[in-house]
């Protein structure tokens, strides 16, 4: 049923929008390339699994715990790695974060084993019915959390002093320094925010999706498609792109095959890029024509 599929698309897509948001922040503010972002989401999922296994509490209640854990991990990573990498340039960042991704993945393999595991929750198997359309509770709550995350991030960036510092730094690093802003701290906060958002995504996903050591790579497509599709620098664009991707996935699951969903997304994205490299809301980037 088309309507059902579209609605599911929105539900799924909202989560991807948050994923894209996290990526945008780290990219836009710190200009830091983090290839391990997807693996951090996976890590969040594993943590959610772990906490649930220990406490048997409702996984949604555990979400704050997961997010805080990720924020802490983000803080540690920042002190240990990110700070030094920021000045080393794109390629070093790509390589180092790739290495981090491998480490997380193999650590997961060693500790948790290769089999996918999941959480059991009332929410994942029950749904709300409205006029013939079924809204899975887990996804519905996930949507709610995603909206809160978006609004919260928007509020943080636009209504708090910290947010002002972050925005200033992202626009012009040097000027921000002259205004007395401590760049390293701002970067640290921005990175922590980005990682926390990854934590939110992971915490939402684990309720309805199993996690295995190879899961992270499927996020890779999304992590990359959503921000670029929406247009770099546009938060609204990211939200819209997330939803579009979600719909594409659901529609291809519905009419083609679930295995093909990411392939479809990717192919559609490549086709879109050929026509409009700057994304939906991206600023006209014929700036440096050679690279987008």
């Amino acid at each position, binding site marked *: 049923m088309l309507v059902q599929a579209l609605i599911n698309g929105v539900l799924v897509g909202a989560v991807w929008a948050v994923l894209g948001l996290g990526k945008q922040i780290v990219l836009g503010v710190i200009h830091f390339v983090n290839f391990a972002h997807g693996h951090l989401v996976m890590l969040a999922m594993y943590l959610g699994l772990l906490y649930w296994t220990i406490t048997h509490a409702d996984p949604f209640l555990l979400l704050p715990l997961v997010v805080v854990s990720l924020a802490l991990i983000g803080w540690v990573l920042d002190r240990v790695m990110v700070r030094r990498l920021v000045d080393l340039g794109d390629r070093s960042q790509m390589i*180092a974060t*790739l290495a981090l991704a491998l480490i997380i993945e193999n650590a997961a393999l060693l500790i948790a084993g290769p089999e996918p595991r999941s959480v059991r929750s009332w929410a994942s198997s029950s749904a709300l019915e409205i006029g013939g359309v079924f809204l899975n509770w887990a996804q519905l709550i996930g949507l709610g959390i995603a909206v809160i995350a978006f609004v919260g991030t928007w509020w943080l960036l636009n209504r708090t002093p910290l947010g002002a510092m972050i925005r200033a730094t992202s626009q012009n690093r040097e000027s921000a320094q002259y205004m007395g802003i401590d760049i390293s701290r701002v970067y640290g906060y921005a990175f922590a925010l980005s990682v926390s958002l990854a934590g939110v995504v992971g915490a939402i996903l684990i309720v309805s999706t199993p996690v295995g050591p190879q899961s992270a790579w499927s996020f*890779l497509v999304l992590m990359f498609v959503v921000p670029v599709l929406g247009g770099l620098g546009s938060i609204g664009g990211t939200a819209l792109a997330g939803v579009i991707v979600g719909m594409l996935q659901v529609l291809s699951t519905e009419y083609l095959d679930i295995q093909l969903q990411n392939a479809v997304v990717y192919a559609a994205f490549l086709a879109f890029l050929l026509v409009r490299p700057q994304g939906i809301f991206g600023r006209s980037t014929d700036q440096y024509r050679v690279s987008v």
Partner: protein
Amino acid sequence: MTGTGSYRAALVGCALLCLGGLIATTSETNARMAAMAAVWGLMAAGWNIVSGYAGPLSLGQAAFFGLTWFLSTLLFIEYDLTPYLGIAIGVVASLLLAVVIGLATLRLSGLYFALATLTIPLIMGTLTRYFDWFELTRPYVGESARHFQFNSSLPYYVTAAVLLAAALFFTAYLQRTRMGRYFVAIRENERAAEASGIPTLRYKLYAFLIAAVMASLAGGIYGQIAFVFTPEDAYSPVTSIQALLIVLIGGAGTVLGPVIGAALVIPAGQLTAEHFSHLPGLDHLAYAVVLLIVAFFSREGLYPLLARGTERLGQLLGRRRPRAPAAVVRKEGP
């Protein structure tokens, strides 16, 4: 990066390969390891050209590697097509794929290009599984040159080593051509290169195609050594990352880099995997740690460190470059 030094380096590379050949004759285990190393060296040589030389960080070499492995295996099983032809078809297919991917993604800036290329093998893996090709086992026909199958790994080593030597000479030759110069300029500063009359997109595409061919050949030979094809192995991101690791350790943008790197990395990886087989993934973990160290221990990033290291190596190998006079370098403006 010009001069006779690069050909000299290629010759040194050949010498190393001969040495490897000698080692390979000592035992089947060694032969297999040497063959693997040569195959990966070939793969890395391709990566070296596109990312070590020309610049864009391509993380999707596994796509061409896997595709050729897949096609040559499939065609052999289904149609009894000789692997030589199968590999050739794989190369052509890889070229076509590379053109499509390249045109779409080379316009993207570094990061997004890297991500885009990283994703390709994953998608291909998914597609392969979708069509139910979970595992393809090559039938064993015994020792047969016609079927490119041998009981020992030595002939595979020889094939791979010859191709790798050719690749080395090609890299050395490249440094003397306009294309090679353009590659270096593009890597150094793409915008300025464009402003100096270089059609950057076109040349990045050329580099990408060259790398695709080499990865494809590597995959084809690898397919002969490894009897069983699985999408997970063929299209694994680690495949691409391994090529990256080899080049980084051996020296990016240099002729010998792939050989030295492969000689170091592959045996290390194999030994780790064997001795620690109860801890799966340890070899990948080791790779990751090494990558981290390499990424961190170059204060200005990997390039200048390696470039300078190879400048010195080049002098050791006797390139005629006069020592630069100590010039007063004032700090550049903002």
